[in-house]
């Protein structure tokens, strides 16, 4: 930009362009440069969620809840502490289904119990007016009748239809969990 301005100024000084032309040229150049920077900055401001990393599930006792999710959804429990445990949707080294980026980990549940002895936070979170009323998991080869039979055999409570393509159930804490296949998606749900 600096070189361009010097060149235009020189042209003006030598009478090659008028004062008006000088101003127009520099204005156009400066605004174009600004626009390019702005566009670049705008692009940089675009964040793109790739996948759910984890869902944080809080309940009075994390162990029976984790055992329930392990039993029903065939999930391993890893990294257990006194208060929580992670249940990844696959084995170590697996990649998330149909995700091409190499820096996206398997989604997982974190099932936790609040720490009753934790000191109050320095900056308490304001109360939320929103709630996650249920979440749904996609499973391979979903067949509603077969899934209902499996869930019933596992002793799962309150199994009910969720439209044509899914089932809802209550987990061990009475939380609403949905199960479905790939055919239940943003284009078909609701």
């Amino acid at each position, binding site marked *: 930009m600096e070189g361009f301005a010097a060149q235009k100024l020189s042209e003006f000084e030598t009478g090659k362009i008028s004062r008006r032309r000088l101003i127009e040229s520099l204005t156009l150049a400066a605004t174009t440069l600004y626009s390019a920077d702005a566009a670049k900055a705008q692009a940089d401001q675009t964040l793109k*969620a790739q996948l759910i990393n984890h869902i944080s*599930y809080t309940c009075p006792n994390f162990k029976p809840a984790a055992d329930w999710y392990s039993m029903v959804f065939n999930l391993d429990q890893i990294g257990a502490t006194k208060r929580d445990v992670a249940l990844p949707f696959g084995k170590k080294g697996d990649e998330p289904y149909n995700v091409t980026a190499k820096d996206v980990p398997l989604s997982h549940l974190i099932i936790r119990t609040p720490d009753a002895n934790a000191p109050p936070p320095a900056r308490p979170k304001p109360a939320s007016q929103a709630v996650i009323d249920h979440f749904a998991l996609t499973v391979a080869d979903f067949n509603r009748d077969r899934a209902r039979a499996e869930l019933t055999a596992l002793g799962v409570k309150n199994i009910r239809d969720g439209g044509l393509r899914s089932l809802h159930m209550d987990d061990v804490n009475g939380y609403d969990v949905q199960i479905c296949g790939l055919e239940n998606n943003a284009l078909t749900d609701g």
Partner: protein
Amino acid sequence: MERFIADLVKNFESGKVDRREFCKTVALAATVYAAGDAANAQATRGFKVLGVNHISYTCPDYTRARDFQINVFGLENTPGHDTGKRANLMFGPEPGKGGSFIVTRNADATPNNRPPAQAYIDHYCYTLSNWDEARVRAAIKAKGQEISGGRDGSLHVLDPFNYDIQFASIVEENAFKR
């Protein structure tokens, strides 16, 4: 099939399923078997989870939550599914190929007869690819949002209804690195 029935009997004996459920399940299993799907009846014991299908988010005004998700995290409003009461916001792989969505919806005025659950989802977390700390923080600021917590590589924001949403890199949020 034998193992399936054996497990079912065990659950009946231990009281996990009652007589009605037991009979219904046996009948269903027999139907599946008769349909020539015997292999599935046995082999699909336990589900193979592919991912989170969707998260259902209820709030006083779904449009504010919808706009926040689109503006901040780049979710896409599914055409034809914004009903005036809810919207399906897509992200990740294509719908039907493993993609997920957030349903933002207004609270239903109809009374819910379900007993209250003893559990709740206190937050959820997105993975962002190509994490660049400075760029991510600048982007959040540029969108008029404030980082509400977290650490480098794993940050939180509060949405318009003060719901806690985390967003993170693979380095900081990975179940196998706990």
